[in-house]
């Protein structure tokens, strides 16, 4: 049969038939890729490359593009709004990353057991992650309302006399956003941790128990080290998504009160699409991209060193 001819007599590498086959394969490969690639090229790849180029150009909706070198960056580093947005983004990341990670791990440990109906609990905790952001923001804004919102009523009930003004106060708006985003995201990271926990061999725990390790020691010496690849991934994903935070802020506080919750993505939007400063906004984009890239590469390096 044909199988035998193929396996027993492999065609010489440079034969004409082989080259013809290679050309045919290239053609076939491209026909598969092309429908997606055309869209991808036009609406993702070219804009990505353009974003780099644009950041060195002066281009607004009223003027033709002009090469200006680093002028956009000089302007950016001298601008108040840029530093405020960068600071706010960092504050958000510093709150969002550790809180989400810790809660996701705790939830995963609680839910990693065989119990009747455990699936329901897992699904319920995951659901906020795929609930529409507008609904989430609207509900939490009401829960946070300063005077008679449920959260401040609860705080009042446990004896806090001057509960914070949350989204109406420039000091408390960011914590309110962080709380909302932690609530929304932790179910997703819980799923990742749950998968990580289930991959730990039970023998490790049994061995530790035989050696007389306490529950705390088992957690510290078996669970945490075994979860390292998951934790690495979770930290990268969380950090990157924190620096990209955008829609939650737009819907919940729109950067306010004042500029207290304005973040980098929002600044890009305001300068680029709102005011038509295409070049300047691309310079901010480049900073955002470099931050995200640095975080990812840095964490990869740390992970590699640990594994060695």
């Amino acid at each position, binding site marked *: 049969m044909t199988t035998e001819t193929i396996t027993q007599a492999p065609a010489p590498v440079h034969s004409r038939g082989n080259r013809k086959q290679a050309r045919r394969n290239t053609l*076939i490969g491209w026909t598969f890729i092309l*429908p997606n690639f055309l869209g991808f090229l036009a609406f*993702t790849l070219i804009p990505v490359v353009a974003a780099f180029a644009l950041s060195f150009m002066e281009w607004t909706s009223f003027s033709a593009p002009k090469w200006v070198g680093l002028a956009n960056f000089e302007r950016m580093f001298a601008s108040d709004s840029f530093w405020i947005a960068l600071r706010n983004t960092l504050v958000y990341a510093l709150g969002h990353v550790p809180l989400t990670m810790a809660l996701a791990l705790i939830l995963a440990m609680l839910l990693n057991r065989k119990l009747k109906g455990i699936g329901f609990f897992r699904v*319920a905790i995951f659901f906020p992650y*795929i609930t*529409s952001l507008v609904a989430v923001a609207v509900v939490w804004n009401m829960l946070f309302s300063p005077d008679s919102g449920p959260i401040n009523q609860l705080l009042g009930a446990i004896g806090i006399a001057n509960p914070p003004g949350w989204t109406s106060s420039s000091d408390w708006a960011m914590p309110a956003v962080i709380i909302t985003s932690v609530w929304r995201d932790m179910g997703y990271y819980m799923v990742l941790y749950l998968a990580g926990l289930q991959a730990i061999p039970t023998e490790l725990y049994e061995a530790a128990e035989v050696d007389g390790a306490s529950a705390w020691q088992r957690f510290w010496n078996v669970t945490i080290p075994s979860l390292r690849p998951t934790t690495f991934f979770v930290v990268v994903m969380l950090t990157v998504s924190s620096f990209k935070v955008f829609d939650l802020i737009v819907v919940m506080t729109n950067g306010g009160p004042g500029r207290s919750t304005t973040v980098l993505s929002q600044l890009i939007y305001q300068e680029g699409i709102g005011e038509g400063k295409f070049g300047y906004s691309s310079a901010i984009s480049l900073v955002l991209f470099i931050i995200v890239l640095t975080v990812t590469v840095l964490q990869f390096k740390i992970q590699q060193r640990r594994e060695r």
Partner: protein
Amino acid sequence: MTNMAEDLKATHLKDAAPFPSGAPTAEDRRRTDRKRSPREQKKRTANIVIYGVLVVLVAALMVPFIWMLSSSLKENNQVLTVPIQWIPSEFVWSNYTDIWTRIPMMGYLQNSLYLAVIITCLQVLTGSLAAYGFSKVRFPGRDVLFLAYIGTIAVPWQAYMVPQYIMMQQLGLTNSFNALILLQAFGAFGVFLMRQYYMTIPDELCEAARIDGLSEYGIWARVILPLSKPALASLALLTFVNTWNDYMGPFIYLTSNRLWTVQLGLRSFVGQFDAEYAMIMTGSVISVIPILIIFLIGQRYFIQGIATSGMKG
């Protein structure tokens, strides 16, 4: 990025059921039939404590949803009361009939559905085709091309939204559904997700089909597609939900009210009538229900898709 994705796959995809059922095994049942030893008794007590903790915890985490539902059935002045009223004193069902005339809710739902369906179909079709090209057909330049796909996944979307916007403006496509369809239907993410799955399908299967005389398109349609139903379902569900929930895309591109999606319509309603608490909550409930239904139907595919790719959108 590739390595990271492969690692994740290795750690997470293997246990194919991230949400395994908690049903007792035969082993467990045999154990309960026997007389309970003190150790098992202790375990039972521990389980009851765990249940208690879980119920309280989940209830606390579900408060925003409970609040949303309860407020949607109240009068406006009953929503923010001291003390909190968890169950409305009088159920105002009329909120759910009035909202359709208050705002063009039906139009918003139709727009969201239209966008979500078109984008999902295009993404699944072009994504699975391209993934076949990237995983099962060998040709020069293939891997470099795939690297370009992966590379763009690492670039935050916010970093290139301005050039995208300029492009759409030049094409005269702003304020139309076409802008959103073109931007979202050919995502690298879908290709990546499907390719990850296709790599797990042994090449020998395709080889056998080739020998049987199937063309490459035939192999894709008759061998690979039927085998990749779970991955297709994951991609379809994730894309649908992402598109349905998307706020920034419609916010940037759709300016006229008749094109608005549910998310935009709801947000604008909140902006205009911020004291109509009850009606706002009614709108929120309506915007979440389709997602809830889809999630309950396709829960398993969802979570697998998310655990495989580790990414959303």
